């Protein structure tokens, strides 16, 4: 082992980390050597949403990929969780659709009570102006991607109550509707048919 000479290795040039520049702001002199961003990252509360955003972006990117998209499409259309709520008459037929005779669970349709876990809102009945803003809130609480089925004439266009002072003439005035089911109330078969048509729509969707 020979001893190292002082001149053998030239000193490495000091690495300069430039502070992030914000438009309209002058770079400040005498900043600490640790960049500002790293201090921010150390704060866990800020870091977790940032990491989540990056992860979501990654997943979204993956979702666009040709290989994965059909899988997600298949999964999305085969497991539609409708919101478990009942507005009016159609709610009874909605419940009958989950009964023993029709059993909507065959198609992977399981009602969930929390809007966070739903992808499908079946508006099963008359929507009044009093409940309108709650309906919109529920719709907004549902995570993307989400769909809406207007079940029955009332949800489609007000039905027999369209002239009434308290009834919204069609839920499409409030939220975007994907499938309309006619009937007053529609039979459970019609409800299942509506769900299957929605599945078809998802299958044919071009992203």
């Amino acid at each position, binding site marked *: 082992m020979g001893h190292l000479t002082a001149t053998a290795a030239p000193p490495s040039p000091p690495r300069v980390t430039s502070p992030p520049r914000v438009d309209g702001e002058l770079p400040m002199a005498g900043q600490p050597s640790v960049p500002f961003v790293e201090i921010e990252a150390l704060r866990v509360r800020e870091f977790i949403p940032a990491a989540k955003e990056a992860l979501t972006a990654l997943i979204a990117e993956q979702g666009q990929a040709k290989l994965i998209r059909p899988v997600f499409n298949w999964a999305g259309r085969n497991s539609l969780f409708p919101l478990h709520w009942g507005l009016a008459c159609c709610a009874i037929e909605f419940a009958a659709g989950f009964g023993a005779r029709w059993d909507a669970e065959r198609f992977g349709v399981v009602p969930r009570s929390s809007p966070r876990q739903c992808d499908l809102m079946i508006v099963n009945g008359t929507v009044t102006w009093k409940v309108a803003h709650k309906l919109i809130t529920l719709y907004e609480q549902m995570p993307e991607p989400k769909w809406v089925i207007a079940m029955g004439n009332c949800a489609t266009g*007000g039905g027999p109550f*369209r*002239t*009434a*002072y*308290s009834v919204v*003439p069609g839920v499409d005035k409030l939220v975007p509707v994907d499938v309309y089911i006619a009937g007053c109330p529609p039979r459970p078969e019609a409800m299942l048919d509506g769900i299957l048509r929605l599945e078809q729509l998802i299958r044919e969707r071009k992203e």
Partner: protein
Amino acid sequence: MLPADLEQALAPKLGARLVGVEPFEGMAGRVRFRREAALDLFRTVREDLGFTHLSMVGGIDWVDHREVFYVVWSDEANQYLVLSTDLPADDAHVESASGVWPSANWHERETWEMVDVTFDHHPDLRHLLVPDGYVFHPLLRSFKLHEPEELEVKSRHV
């Protein structure tokens, strides 16, 4: 219980404030009274005549005046009775029955918001069926229903 019996029982207590008792199909009768008599009549009907159960309170808009009717039943007599009073349209108020029959509470709230009849001394007179802040009284004859298309056209012009 016949209308004549009712009149006999009520007339001494109410005097001139009792307008009259008419026969009514399927009921003991229909007691018409002036609104000043409301509380006395309710108490008499409930405690002396035994009509312990108030079934419904409703209002009718007769354009020139408004009518409020109360349907009560008695278990012992196995009879219904309808009490009704006429109120002027510009000053429609009557004493609340909810102190006598607690079940009147919601019915009176509904009548208030639908037919615009104020119930004095009601414990909790606020909107029940229509949203808070709704200014119309839908069951008045002057309140007309229209097709939603008309509504849309109007709102577009506004």
